[in-house]
């Protein structure tokens, strides 16, 4: 029982990734599918941050730090990179959806199946 409580952040990560997969597989609206991708990306970011956690340790910044013990800094740096890349790809996908809506008149992924004509 105890280890289920302690592993709660990882269980949250599993829940977020499963919700994102569900959204991508079962929704027909393209914007909702992009939302699913964003949910998966947030789950991965939460996983990276919670990997770096050490109990009772401070943030890795020496300015007025409360103590000498600090959490692992590399995962935080990678999470920053991941957030900006996710934002860029989401903006690009949304602009593709805007173009699709203009040319085909629909954001339904089933109606946009054929690419010619």
């Amino acid at each position: 029982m105890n280890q289920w409580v302690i592993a709660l952040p990882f269980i949250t990560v599993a829940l977020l990734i499963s919700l994102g997969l569900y959204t991508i597989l079962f929704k027909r609206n393209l914007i909702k599918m992009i939302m699913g991708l964003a949910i998966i990306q947030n789950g991965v970011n939460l996983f990276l941050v919670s990997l770096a956690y050490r109990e009772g340790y401070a943030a890795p910044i020496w300015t007025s730090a409360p103590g000498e013990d600090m959490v692992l800094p590399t995962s935080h740096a990678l999470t920053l990179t991941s957030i900006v890349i996710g934002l860029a790809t989401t903006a690009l996908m949304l602009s593709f959806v805007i173009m699709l809506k203009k040319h085909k008149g629909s954001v339904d992924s089933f109606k946009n199946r054929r690419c010619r004509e």
Partner: protein
Amino acid sequence: MRKLVAFLAIMIIFAFLVITAVELRGDDGGFGEPVNTEMDEYFLENSQSHNQVNNIVTAILFDYRGLDTLGEATVLFAAVSGVLTVLRKMKPVKRGGKR
């Protein structure tokens, strides 16, 4: 039927992820107890003497792993170029006097 199979597949993936998350504790290093921390300890000890920087995350971003940041800035640049290219020729729609 197809939806049911896909739903079951998602539930199996979810169960696999949860079991992995719970079983991560122990010698593998679970939540709150990371193991293989040599690289991070090196950064924590030496970033002040190498870079004269207090914020260790910034020191990693712009010095130790600077090529990561360069690639990331390039990705942002490429994405903005893509957005500019895709939305370049959008002319405003004539709204027939309703607004």
